């Protein structure tokens, strides 16, 4: 069994979802969907034994082997960790969604189809060894998340959020594709493993830094780093299970994955270290600072996700330093990054689910209206408390462990004596500390303003009560993990983190056991990170208690100076500017468009023909002109003239038919029976079609063409005719290479087992062409159906109104 196929399992399962939804109304579709992530999770668990020894597994599916593009599933420590997160959290989210989304009111078929597509795409991203297939899956995550964010598509905000996230992430994706192509040119391969193996030679290439920046743009947009984070808060318009899944545990981490995966290639560059660490830290600070300003529960979590992603990013940057300085602490940073990634997935997943529960049971997410829910929703409160305290970095929760490691790494980076880190490096621990204070504040803000204190006097939209048991299973499980990981961090470290670290820094280790990190909750009183944490708690507590006094600070920044305003105005300008541009040349007359097109063809083709001195006429190789040929040509000309002179539409249609039939006759004369047959039938069917629509066509009349107009048309017509004739003559007169038809003649029987070249080309040699052609044909058919049915329906609607 090729396990690469398992990537596509969710998509295949998605095919059955609409069927299950329609046929089995009584059962929530989610129960069927739940099977998929659980099965995959169990399957991927089996790889732990492989990756623990530093091994990997690959499985290949050929796609375009001639271009070196294929689907290669490459499972090492890093991809396994992500695959487990995707399927594990995926299973919990699906379970949660079964209780969150009502089976009678929601369009579950849409929801689960999108979710499953997303799951496949994510698995593809993290397992692809080929950058081109990685890009493909990458964009598929953008598209499926667009659909999921816009799931409630009747709401304006949903559509706006979906579009915004798509614009930003697809922009980054395209940049990233550019980076990948450059890497492919530099390393002469699209395989990530081979690129890593060649990384020493890549550095010297002149495109290296450009490729680095392009790839980073992709990672930063996806992972919502500053200044691209603005899409993430708007993406919160999605249903809560989606937010928990895409926007905390998986999709946004694709950027983290990308940075981790490409660290061995780019880490030797100074730009990489500075950018990844710097932007990460800036994002950490920015997100935590603005999280306190938010009033919507999900918005707080969105900003906190932004900030936590920045934290992981900066740790990866510090981990890249290990390539420059042989210092254990920087290897340690990579461990901290991966470890925090797992921790963040657990606590943020549970927090999002709690936010959803609060919304579901009280009818609002506005933190100003909430409060005092502790006694009504004790289980939810406990989970929220555990998650928040972990987020704030307090013991005994897993966030504490990785937060300590983060502070240690940031403290260490100022001792790094290269690329100005020795002087500027002091910024890193300072910013990290300030950001931690705000993280502490918003964690407390989130949990205590919602659950503690007094109930507000105005009643909530719904009478609050504890969520049903099914809805609580997933967050409780995640919260258990949060506590569990704190007590057994080294088991997780051995199974998951160390193999992943080895994948991030493959050159530094030969075996995962060489990753010499032992996680301990207690480092003794001389640990500076401990004192930093104590200071965070002290200052954070003061800030939290005095929040009402200083929250006004946020109003200082005017709205029109924000990044969101920049995005909005860019979009507005883009729209109006493009409108003006297209109105400039779009006259609404097909005549004008044809004129543009033909004029360009004539100008460009004839110019090239003469500039390149390609025009040659070689009379020797012409076929003999037969009597039939001359006669058919005469008929053709007469028919064409008849079209021009026709006074009625019927006459024009018949003359047009005559033109078609004469062309078919030409095909017969020149021994192309296939073409002749097709042409004849097409001509018959299209004349019949014309006649069908005939009744509705206006009678042939003068369209207000002036003589000048007609003259212009004549010039263009003659020009096109002459151009085509010139090209045909030149093409026929000079044959630089032997005609390809000989190749087809030789191989058609052996390669494709056929006899008719035309048909074999259609279905075999150029099957892709045909496939897309029939796709176009189908779209055209559905288009006609849509336009006419729609118009009819609208007409009927009007009649009823009367």
């Amino acid at each position, binding site marked *: 069994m090729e396990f690469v196929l398992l990537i596509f399992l969710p998509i295949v399962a998605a095919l059955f979802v609409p069927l299950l939804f329609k046929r089995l109304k009584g059962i929530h579709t989610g129960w069927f969907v739940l099977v998929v992530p659980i099965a995959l999770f169990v399957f991927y668990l089996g790889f732990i034994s492989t990756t623990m020894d530093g091994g990997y597994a690959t499985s290949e599916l050929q796609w375009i082997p001639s271009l070196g593009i294929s689907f290669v599933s490459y499972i090492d420590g890093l991809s396994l960790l992500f695959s487990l997160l995707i399927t594990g959290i995926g299973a919990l989210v699906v379970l949660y969604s079964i209780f969150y989304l009502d089976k009678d009111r929601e369009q579950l078929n849409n929801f689960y189809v999108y979710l499953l597509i997303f799951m496949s795409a994510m698995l593809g991203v993290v397992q692809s060894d080929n950058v081109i297939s990685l890009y493909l899956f990458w964009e598929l995550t953008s598209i499926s998340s667009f659909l999921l964010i816009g799931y409630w598509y009747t709401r304006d905000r949903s559509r706006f959020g979906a579009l915004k996230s798509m614009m930003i992430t697809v922009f980054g994706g395209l940049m990233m594709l550019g980076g990948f192509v450059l890497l492919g040119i530099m390393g002469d391969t699209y395989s990530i493993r081979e690129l890593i193996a060649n990384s020493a030679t890549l550095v010297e290439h002149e495109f290296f830094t450009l490729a680095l920046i392009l790839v980073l743009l992709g990672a930063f947009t996806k992972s919502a780093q500053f200044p691209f984070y603005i899409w993430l808060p708007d993406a919160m318009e999605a249903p809560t299970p989606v937010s928990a899944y895409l926007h905390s545990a998986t999709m946004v981490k694709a950027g983290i994955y990308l940075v981790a995966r490409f660290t061995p290639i780019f880490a030797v560059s100074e730009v990489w270290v500075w950018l990844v660490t710097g932007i990460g830290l800036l994002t950490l600070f920015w997100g935590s600072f603005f999280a306190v300003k938010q009033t919507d529960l999900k918005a707080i979590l969105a900003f906190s996700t932004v900030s936590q992603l920045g934290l992981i990013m900066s740790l990866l940057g510090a981990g890249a330093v290990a390539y420059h300085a042989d210092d254990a602490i920087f290897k340690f940073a990579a461990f901290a990054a991966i470890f925090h990634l797992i921790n963040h997935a657990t606590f943020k997943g549970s927090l999002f689910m709690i936010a959803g529960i609060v919304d579901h049971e009280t009818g609002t997410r506005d933190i100003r209206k909430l409060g005092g829910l502790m006694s009504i929703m004790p289980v939810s409160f406990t989970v929220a408390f555990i998650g928040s305290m972990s987020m704030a970095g307090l013991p005994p929760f897993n966030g504490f462990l990785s937060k300590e490691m983060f502070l240690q790494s940031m403290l260490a980076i100022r001792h790094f004596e290269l690329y100005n880190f020795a002087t500027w490096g002091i910024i890193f621990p300072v910013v990290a500390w300030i950001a931690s204070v705000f993280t502490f504040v918003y964690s407390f803000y989130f949990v205590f303003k919602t659950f503690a204190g007094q109930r507000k006097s105005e009643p909530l939209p719904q009478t609050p009560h504890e969520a049903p048991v099914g809805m609580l299973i997933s967050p409780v499980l995640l919260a258990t993990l949060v506590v569990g990981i704190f007590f057994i961090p080294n088991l997780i470290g051995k199974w998951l983190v160390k193999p992943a670290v080895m994948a991030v820094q493959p050159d530094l280790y030969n075996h995962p056991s060489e990753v010499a990190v032992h996680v301990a909750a207690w480092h003794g009183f001389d640990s500076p990170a401990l004192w930093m944490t104590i200071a965070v708690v002290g200052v954070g507590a003061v800030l939290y208690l005095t929040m009402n006094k200083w929250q006004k600070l946020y109003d200082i920044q005017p709205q029109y100076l924000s990044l969101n305003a920049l995005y909005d105005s860019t979009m507005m300008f883009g729209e109006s500017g493009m409108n003006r541009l297209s109105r400039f040349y779009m006259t609404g007359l097909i005549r004008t468009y044809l004129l543009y097109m033909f004029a360009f063809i004539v100008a460009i083709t004839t110019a090239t023909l003469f500039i390149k001195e390609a025009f040659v006429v070689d009379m020797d190789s012409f076929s003999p002109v037969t009597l039939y040929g001359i006669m058919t040509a005469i008929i053709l000309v007469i028919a064409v003239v008849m079209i021009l002179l026709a006074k009625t539409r019927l006459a024009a249609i018949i003359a047009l038919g005559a033109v078609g039939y004469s062309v078919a006759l030409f095909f017969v004369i020149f021994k192309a029976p296939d073409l002749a047959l097709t042409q004849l039938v097409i001509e018959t069917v299209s004349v019949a079609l014309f006649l069908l629509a005939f009744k*509705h066509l206006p009678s042939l009349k003068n369209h207000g063409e002036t003589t000048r107009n007609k003259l212009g048309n004549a010039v263009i017509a003659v020009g096109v005719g002459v151009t085509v004739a010139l090209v045909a003559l030149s093409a026929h007169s000079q044959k630089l290479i032997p005609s390809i038809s000989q190749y087809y003649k030789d191989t058609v029987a052996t390669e494709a087992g056929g006899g008719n070249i035309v048909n074999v080309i259609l279905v075999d040699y150029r*099957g892709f062409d045909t496939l897309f052609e029939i796709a176009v044909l189908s779209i055209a058919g559905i288009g006609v159906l849509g336009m006419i049915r729609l118009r009819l329906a609208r007409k009927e609607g009007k009649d009823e109104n009367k």
Partner: protein
Amino acid sequence: MKTNDVILQTATKVVFFIIFLFSIHIFFAGHYTPGGGFVGGLLTTGAIVLLLLAFDLKTVQKALPFNFTIVTGIGLLLALGTAAGSIFFNVPFFTHAFDDFTLPLFGTTSLHTAMIFDAGVYLVVVGAAITMIQTIGGDA
């Protein structure tokens, strides 16, 4: 307006089957002699158009009770499925296979996965063309 085209209608009843059988023949012969799914589909379309001209839309719909949009869909799926099927044999997308088989009645016959693909083309052509003609004609 009710017309009475006895000669046209009677002739059509016979001619329709001749054209239809010919289109089937052309479809199967396509791999070795002129023809194939595209032309075959068009010929079938032509035959149906003839029916439409001789009778009216409703009668034809009753005689051929297919939803042609779905025919298009089935055709597309068939074509795509043939192309994608190769994935399961771990060969590149769109790799065809063929071999000779001894079948009852037919004797030794060369069978080709390209034929399934071509059948998809055939169905799409018929489906899309008739969908267009029916909707445009039905608008009257």
